[in-house]
C-alpha cells in the first residue's frame, strides 16, 4: 500500500520509538502535522520554535534519548538556529524536521523560503534536503543513527511540501550504509595499555572529566576509576553531575570560575586524565600554562578533539564507557596518600566562599537547595552568574542531574530545557535556576509548562541587571556599566500567577528554608522570584590571558 512520505515519516518515528516531538506548525509542514493526527506520538506545542529545540535538548540530556523537533520552513527554521547551535556545541542528539517550500519553488525566494540546509551546515552534524520522497525513510534512519552514535549531535531533515505529499511504498531499513561515517567505539588496546602504564608510573594524577561521561552514561566507570587509582576528579561545566559532588575525591569545577583546589591540582599534576572533555578555552585559561608538568591521556570519541588544543601523550579514540571498562581491569589499586593530602590541603585552604551575613545571597539559596534535595534533583540552569553559582554550590549526586548550556552559552536555554527534562523525567524533581535576563528571553514557555502540567520549580535570581555582563564591566571596564539595567522587570510572581502558576517572592535569608521546602513539595509548577543584590559577583575568577592557577577574588 502506498502512503504519503509525511505518513511514512511518522511511521519511521514510531519505528524509532519516538514517544513525543516538540514543535510548532506552519504552512509547509502541514502534511506532517496531518499525519501526526493519526499517530500515538505526542506533540508538545511550544510557544516559539526556539523553545521546541531547547526543550528537545533538555529532554535528550535528561533521558539519553534522541530529541525530536518539528517546525515549518522560513521563520520556523530560522527560529531553531540558536537551539540547534546549542545542541551542536554540547553534542546533544537531536533530529530536526523542517518543512520546506515545494521543490519547484526552491530557489525562487518563495513565501517562507530560506536555505535551511545551507544555514545549518555549520551547526549540524549532518543535514539532508529531501529531493526524492522514496528516500525519506532511509534518510530518517540515517539521521537517528548519525545523531545518536559517535559524538552525538543534531541532524536536520528539510522536507519540501510536495515531497511530503508524494505517495511512496513504505519500508523502514534495518541497517544503515554510510561509507563516510564509521565512528570508533572501542579504544585501541595498545593505547589503553599505554594509559595503564602511565597511570601506574604517575605520582600526582588528576582526572578531568567532561560532558562525554554524561553522554556515554559512564559515571559508574568514572567513580570506579577514581577510587581505584585514588585520583582527585575535577569536572568541566558539562561534566558536572557525572561524579558525586560530595565525594572526598571531588575537587569541583575547574577553569574560569573553577575552584582554586581544582585549578591548583591541574597545574601541579604530573598526569592529566582527560575523559570526554575538549580543553575548551574557559577551562584552560592561558593554554601554555595549563597542566604544564603533566603527561596527558585523552579519551574522546571524536578524533578531531584529540591534539586540537594541547599536545597529547596517549590519545585514545573511543567511547569513554567502553574505554574505561577495558582500562579498569588493567589498573592496580593505588593508596599513596601524599598527593591526596596535598590536594586536601588546597581544598581546606581555598574553599569557595561568600559573605553569608546580611542580605539574601544566591549562593546561600543554592546551598539550601542542595541541602533540601540531597543533591538528587535534576537542576537546569540558564546562562550567567546563577549558572556558575549552581555549578559551584550544588553538590550533584544524581548522575546526569545537571542540564546547562555550556559551549554556546545561550541565554534563554533554561526554561524550555527544564520543561523538556521534566517531560522526559515525569515523577522526578526538576528545578530551574535562572536569571531575570535569560528568563525573559524564553518566558513564553510558561504557557507550555501549564498546558503540559509540568511541575517544574522555577527559581529566578532576580538582581534586575544582566549580572555576568555587569561583572565583566566591573572587572574589565572600570565599572562603566552600559546596557545592563533591567529595572523595568515585571513582577515575576504576578506574571506566574497570570499563567496560573503559583508565584512567590523571596526577599530575605530567613524565608529561604520555608519557601523552598514549600515550593518543592508542591505537586505543580511554582515560581520563586528571589530578590538578590546586583553587587554579588562570581568568585574566584581567572582573568583573560592568565593561568588558571592565578585566580582573583571577585
Amino acid at each position, binding site marked *: 500500500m502506498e502512503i504519503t512520505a509525511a505518513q511514512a515519516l511518522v511511521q519511521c518515528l514510531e519505528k524509532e520509538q519516538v514517544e513525543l516531538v516538540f514543535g510548532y506548525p506552519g504552512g509547509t509542514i502541514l502534511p506532517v502535522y496531518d499525519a501526526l493526527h493519526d499517530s500515538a506520538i505526542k506533540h508538545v506545542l511550544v510557544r516559539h520554535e526556539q523553545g521546541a529545540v531547547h526543550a528537545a535538548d533538555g529532554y535528550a540530556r535528561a533521558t539519553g534519548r534522541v530529541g525530536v523537533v518539528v517546525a515549518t520552513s522560513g521563520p520556523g527554521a530560522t527560529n531553531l538556529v540558536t537551539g540547534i547551535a546549542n545542541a551542536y556545541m554540547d553534542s546533544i542528539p537531536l533530529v530536526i524536521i523542517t518543512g520546506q517550500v515545494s521543490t519547484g519553488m526552491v530557489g525562487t525566494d518563495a513565501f517562507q523560503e530560506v536555505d535551511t*540546509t*545551507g544555514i545549518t*551546515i*555549520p551547526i549540524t*552534524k*549532518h543535514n539532508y*534536503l529531501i*529531493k526524492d520522497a522514496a528516500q525519506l525513510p532511509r534518510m530518517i534512519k540515517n539521521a537517528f*543513527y*548519525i545523531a545518536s552514535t559517535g559524538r552525538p549531535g543534531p541532524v536536520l531533515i528539510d522536507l519540501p511540501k510536495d515531497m511530503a505529499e508524494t505517495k511512496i511504498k513504505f519500508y523502514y531499513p534495518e*541497517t*544503515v*550504509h*554510510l*561509507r*563516510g*561515517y*564509521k565512528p570508533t567505539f572501542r579504544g585501541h588496546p595498545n593505547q589503553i595499555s599505554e594509559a595503564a602504564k602511565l597511570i601506574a608510573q604517575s605520582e600526582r594524577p588528576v582526572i578531568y572529566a567532561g560532558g562525554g561521561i554524561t553522554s556515554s552514561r559512564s559515571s559508574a566507570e568514572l567513580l570506579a576509576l577514581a577510587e581505584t587509582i585514588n585520583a582527585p576528579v575535577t569536572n568541566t561545566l558539562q561534566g558536572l553531575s557525572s561524579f558525586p559532588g560530595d565525594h572526598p575525591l571531588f575537587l569541583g569545577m575547574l577553569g574560569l570560575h573553577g575552584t582554586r583546589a581544582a585549578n591548583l591540582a591541574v597545574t601541579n599534576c604530573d598526569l592529566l586524565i582527560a575523559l570526554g572533555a575538549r580543553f575548551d578555552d574557559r577551562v584552560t585559561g592561558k593554554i601554555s600554562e595549563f597542566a604544564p608538568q603533566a603527561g596527558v591521556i585523552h579519551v574522546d570519541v*571524536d*578524533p*578531531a578533539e584529540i*591534539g*586540537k588544543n594541547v599536545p597529547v601523550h596517549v590519545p585514545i579514540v573511543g567511547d569513554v564507557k567502553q574505554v574505561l571498562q577495558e582500562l579498569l581491569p588493567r589498573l592496580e589499586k593505588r593508596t599513596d596518600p601524599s598527593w591526596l593530602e596535598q590536594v586536601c590541603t588546597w581544598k581546606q585552604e581555598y574553599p569557595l566562599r561568600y559573605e553569608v551575613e546580611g542580605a539574601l545571597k544566591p549562593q546561600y539559596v543554592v546551598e539550601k537547595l542542595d541541602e533540601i534535595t540531597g543533591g538528587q534533583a535534576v537542576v537546569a540552569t540558564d546562562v550567567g552568574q546563577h549558572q556558575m553559582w549552581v555549578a559551584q554550590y550544588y553538590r550533584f549526586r544524581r548522575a546526569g542531574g545537571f542540564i546547562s548550556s555550556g559551549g554556546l552559552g545561550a541565554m534563554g536555554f533554561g526554561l524550555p530545557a527544564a520543561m523538556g527534562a521534566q517531560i522526559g523525567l515525569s515523577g522526578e524533581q526538576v528545578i530551574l535556576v535562572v536569571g531575570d535576563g535569560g528568563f525573559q528571553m524564553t518566558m513564553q514557555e510558561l504557557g507550555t509548562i501549564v498546558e503540559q502540567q509540568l511541575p517544574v520549580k522555577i527559581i529566578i535570581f532576580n538582581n534586575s541587571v544582566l549580572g555576568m555582563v555587569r561583572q565583566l564591566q566591573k572587572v574589565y571596564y572600570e565599572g562603566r556599566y552600559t546596557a545592563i539595567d533591567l529595572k523595568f522587570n515585571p513582577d515575576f510572581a504576578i506574571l506566574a500567577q497570570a499563567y496560573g502558576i503559583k508565584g512567590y517572592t523571596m526577599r530575605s535569608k530567613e524565608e529561604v528554608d520555608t519557601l523552598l521546602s514549600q515550593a518543592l513539595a508542591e505537586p505543580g509548577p511554582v515560581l520563586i522570584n528571589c530578590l538578590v543584590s546586583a553587587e554579588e559577583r562570581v568568585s574566584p575568577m581567572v582573568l583573560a590571558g592568565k593561568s588558571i592557577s592565578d585566580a582573583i577574588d571577585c
Partner: protein
Amino acid sequence: MLHTLAVLVENSPGVLARVAGLFSRRGYNIDSLAVGRTEDPEVSRMTIVVDGDDRVLEQVTKQLHKLVDVIKISDITADEYVDRELVLIKVNADHSQRVEVIQICDVFRARIVDLGRKTLTLECTGNHGKINALEETLRPYGIKELVRTGKIAMVRGTKNNTGYQDIGTKEEN
C-alpha cells in the same frame, strides 16, 4: 608548506559547500580545489591543495573526516605522484608577434586552440611550475584572458593510494 590531499566524497548536493565552508569557517587556507566525478558516478574526487604546518594538516584531515559525505582522505604530498593543471590563455599576438608566441607554445608543448584577428588562444597542461612559467613568459605580450583549473593529482605506479576498492564495503549495525 603546501599539502596535496586526495579526497573522495559522496556525489551529493551540497558536498562542495560543506567542504568549502569547513575550510573558511575554521580558517584553513585553500591554495586550490578541483572537483569532478570518478569512475563511480556516486563518488566525486576533490584534489585540495592546502597551506599549513603538520598540526594544521592534522586538524584539516580530522575535521574533513567528520563530514558524513567525506569517504576517504589521503595526503599524497610525500608520495610520488603525477599532477596536472590545465590553463587556457588568450594572448595578444598580432602579425609582428605571432611567430614568437607560436614558438613559445612549442617550447611549452601548448596547443593553439583558437585564433582571433589579434589574439591566439592556447591550451596547456602541466604541473603548477610549468603553467606559472608559461604565464610569465607570455605576460610581456599582453594576456587578455586567463583561466586555470586547480591541480588534480594521482599517485604513480599500480598502488591505489585512495584505497578506492575498499570504499564499497558496507557497515552493518
